[in-house]
């Protein structure tokens, strides 16, 4: 491991490493910059939680992420902005084609969202606040001091709830997460990981380090000559003379997902014809786990790097269940992480890899249908909202999940999982169904319905549950960039010193240099 790969925890926002599980209350704010100068000052003094180890757990935490409009509002020059990837720049609701791909159609369509579409141009920052139970109101007041009020306007306060181990349908959540290989103990090489591993290269989550391809994900780089503020940024490890605005940053995907809890349980009870045990079983097949988190497949005897054998609720993969007899292939957790390796099960060693690569390993008919998991992992940091307390009379209150996922590449991670796996009607050879929890239920153009749920049965014919209603509705969503701490200061400084809206220094790097930076950043260092 070289120095450049040593992870700079103190420059990384804490959320990339910790879920703030001990801080049970949270508050998510969407902000608009009303005064660039004041915003710059506030950003420079903001006490942002970092991933560095502390002697004791903090009592509060603040995390900050930006939209492209926010970066512009703070004065980031267009040439730097345009180096961000297309997904982030266009935004989750900025192109109908993207909405179609992500299944944000019909009842999920951006036009119906409460936030994130009509108002998106005005949303500049996402502020995530965390504190101990019962103290979030006070903490929020503390944050919203005079300096804050003159800098920002709160466009939207997203609903959140006291942290609960269960999501609103009643299932235990937050059990499976990738384990980030901060020490770089595992090799990253394109075709090298035969079986599933839960260890994930830091560069898959945080920019500026090697990802699972052993490469650096492209990110905005700034030359010190054209932009003097950039000296506070970390240097670009692959481009001498340039500073790295992306290093230690990550992209944050936020989706407010409303859950129809009563509709969900009503449907499974109807299908089970009132048999409560059967209803419970059906619901667990939708998820792939029982309510208490117990997986439907039995733990594997094989070794899974990054998951301890003692963690019996997570030490499993689907290698021994290719047809979905134990856990339906279409179950939510199987779709969102098929726990696949680079090769189908049983392949190991040079020869069998070669046979498989050339397409002659025909035993694995059913098993080689999904992509390798490691390139499509999500670090989930969501929180639930709108819990209905048993004593309360409200039954039609909106409840759901503020789904948050972090990653270094939105397209390859969140969008891939959502579109190629979750809502795809042909995931792993399945047909006529989409994710039972998340999917919209629109039929294919040729009329084939996709509102089913299939249960494979070792005794023969599959069972088909028809006419699933949609259980989840998207109420708002956005893509954000959560920079490293130095990059936040850099933005703050830039904003403070350019209150009039001019780009710093005026002289702009020529476009040839930009395209050169863009293109070779991920190959650099390799002959």
């Amino acid at each position, binding site marked *: 491991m070289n120095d450049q790969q040593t992870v700079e925890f103190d420059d990384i926002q804490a959320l990339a490493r910790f879920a703030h599980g001990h801080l049970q209350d949270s508050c998510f704010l969407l902000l608009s910059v009303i005064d660039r100068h004041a915003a710059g000052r506030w950003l420079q003094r903001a006490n942002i939680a970092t991933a560095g180890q502390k002697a004791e757990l903090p009592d509060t935490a603040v995390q900050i992420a930006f939209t492209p409009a926010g970066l512009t509002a703070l004065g980031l020059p267009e040439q730097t902005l345009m180096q961000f990837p297309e997904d982030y720049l266009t935004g989750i609701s900025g192109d109908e084609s993207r909405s179609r791909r992500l299944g944000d159609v019909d009842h999920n369509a951006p036009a119906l969202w409460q936030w994130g579409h009509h108002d998106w141009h005005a949303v500049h920052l996402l502020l995530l606040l965390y504190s101990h139970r019962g103290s979030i109101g006070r903490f929020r007041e503390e944050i919203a001091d005079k300096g804050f009020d003159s800098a920002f306007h709160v466009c939207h306060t997203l609903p959140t709830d006291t942290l609960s181990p269960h999501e609103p349908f009643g299932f235990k959540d937050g059990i499976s997460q990738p384990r980030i290989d901060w020490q770089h103990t595992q090799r990253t090489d394109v075709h090298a990981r035969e079986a599933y591993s839960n260890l994930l290269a830091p560069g898959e989550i945080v920019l500026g380090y090697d990802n699972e391809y052993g*490469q650096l994900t492209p990110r905005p780089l700034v030359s010190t000559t054209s932009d003097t503020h950039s000296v506070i940024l970390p240097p670009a490890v692959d481009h001498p003379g340039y500073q790295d605005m992306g290093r230690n940053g990550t992209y944050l995907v936020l989706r407010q997902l409303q859950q129809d809890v009563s509709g969900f349980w009503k449907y499974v009870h109807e299908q089970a014809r009132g048999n409560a045990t059967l209803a419970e079983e059906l619901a667990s097949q939708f998820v792939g786990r029982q309510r208490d988190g117990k997986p439907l497949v039995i733990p594997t005897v094989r070794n899974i790097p990054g998951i301890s054998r003692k963690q019996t609720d997570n030490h499993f993969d689907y290698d021994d269940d290719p047809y979905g007899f134990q856990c339906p292939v279409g179950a939510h957790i199987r779709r969102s992480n098929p726990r696949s390796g680079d090769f189908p099960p049983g392949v190991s060693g040079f020869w069998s890899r070669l046979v498989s690569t050339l397409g002659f390993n025909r035993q694995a008919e059913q098993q080689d249908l999904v992509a390798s998991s490691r*390139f499509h992992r999500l670090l989930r940091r969501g929180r639930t909202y709108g819990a209905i307390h048993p004593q309360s009379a409200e039954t039609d209150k909106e409840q759901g999940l503020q789904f948050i996922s972090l990653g270094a590449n939105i397209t390859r991670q969140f969008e891939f999982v959502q579109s190629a796996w979750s809502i795809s009607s042909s995931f792993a050879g399945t047909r006529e169904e989409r994710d039972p929890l998340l999917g919209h239920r629109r039929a294919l153009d*040729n009329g084939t319905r996709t509102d089913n749920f299939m249960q494979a049965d070792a*005794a023969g014919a*599959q069972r088909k549950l028809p006419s699933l209603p949609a259980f989840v509705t998207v109420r708002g969503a956005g893509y954000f960039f959560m920079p490293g701490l130095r990059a936040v200061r850099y933005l703050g400084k830039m904003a403070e010193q350019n209150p009039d809206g001019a780009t710093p220094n005026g002289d702009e790097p020529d476009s040839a240099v930009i395209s050169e930076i863009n293109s070779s950043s*991920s*190959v650099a260092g*390799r002959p």
Partner: protein
Amino acid sequence: MTPQSSFMIVVPIASGKRDAMDSLLESMNLAPGRVDPHNPVIPFALFDELHSARLLIIEANTAEDILAYDTEVRHWTPSLALLGEVDGERGQFLARLAVVASHGLATLFALCQGFDTHQGSMLSFLQSHQTNSAADYVNWRGRTVRQVHEEARLQRFLAERLSTMLAEDGHTDVRQIRQQLLTSVQLEQQTGRLTLTPEAPTSWRHWWRNALHLISLPVILLLLTPVLVVVLPLALWRLRKIEKNDPDIDTKSTLAHIRTLSRIEDHDVSNQFNVFGDVKPGLFRLLLLKSVMYIVSYAARHIYRRGYLARVRTIHFARWVFLNQNRSMYFASLYDGSLESYMDDFINKVAFGLNLTFSHGVGYPRTRWMIKGGAELEQPFKQTLRRHQLPAAVWYRAHPGLTAIDMARHARIRRGIEEYPLDNAQIRQWLSEI
């Protein structure tokens, strides 16, 4: 067996007619990316031997990249391409096309060069602009459009029968279930509602041609062995040398370009893909690429003919075509899933194959020995594909909604009907696939 063949008509667009062409092509769609199968220009649905077809304007968006080689920009006139895959001989299809769509074709070609002065028939115009592929891949050689439709209908029928049977009473004996299903299929066949046309016999001509092609590669290799022993090391040395000197060119696609492409993607379970770019300069590169193409074409014809292209099983059709007097190459495919998952397969499953065939293109990420590197460089690779990609203005599929995996499963279901006997485990497997 009925072999599949491909056609591709390429005609330069007349100057000043580009906009008219765009709107004429757009008129063939119901919405962007969704063709009207009965559109008056080319009513695709009338051709029951046609698997898929597309129309696009091939234009050289990346022509200036070659300046990095200190070579002049190669001139290419934006051209209309009409291409597709059919059952049986190309000639027969083109003859029918020329008759059935003569009026529509005439309006299309009226916007192109050379049509107004063309003397002969529509067919001769088509034939004189037919451009052969260097290599053609077909997911399942011999599977006809008719077979796909019949087998899909069979599966739907069986699935419906099966679910009513299971709902009626708790059938448990799999043999009995199967027997009942077979009987219903027979009844349905007698009424004519269900047909399962047997495979057509292979023509002698096709058989001979294929057999000759099969032995061609071994024979050539054998004859050339003495030469190859000398030439190969030299060629490898030269290859490595030019690989090292290849300039790195990768500019990002504009947001507008990405938008244009994605507008027509992901409307169905399958997507179309077209890329066009220049071949790197030099005779050595060209010879190398020609030999690679010969091998690819050989492998596609004799090895990867039943559902697999190396490890990838989501490609229905693919073809590689030399254009502009071997100076440029065009690649087209039809695949299942989204572009991101297609590229994921390219990188994680068949990077070597992509490198062998595409590393001769200007702007491709740097390779080592024509196999390593290249597609393994994830971001530059994705970027270069996207940048060389061209949207299909119109594209048609005879069987929307069906993936290659579906079709293979339907064929297995049919085999389970026609083959006797099955043991209990096989019957269970068969039932589970329905």
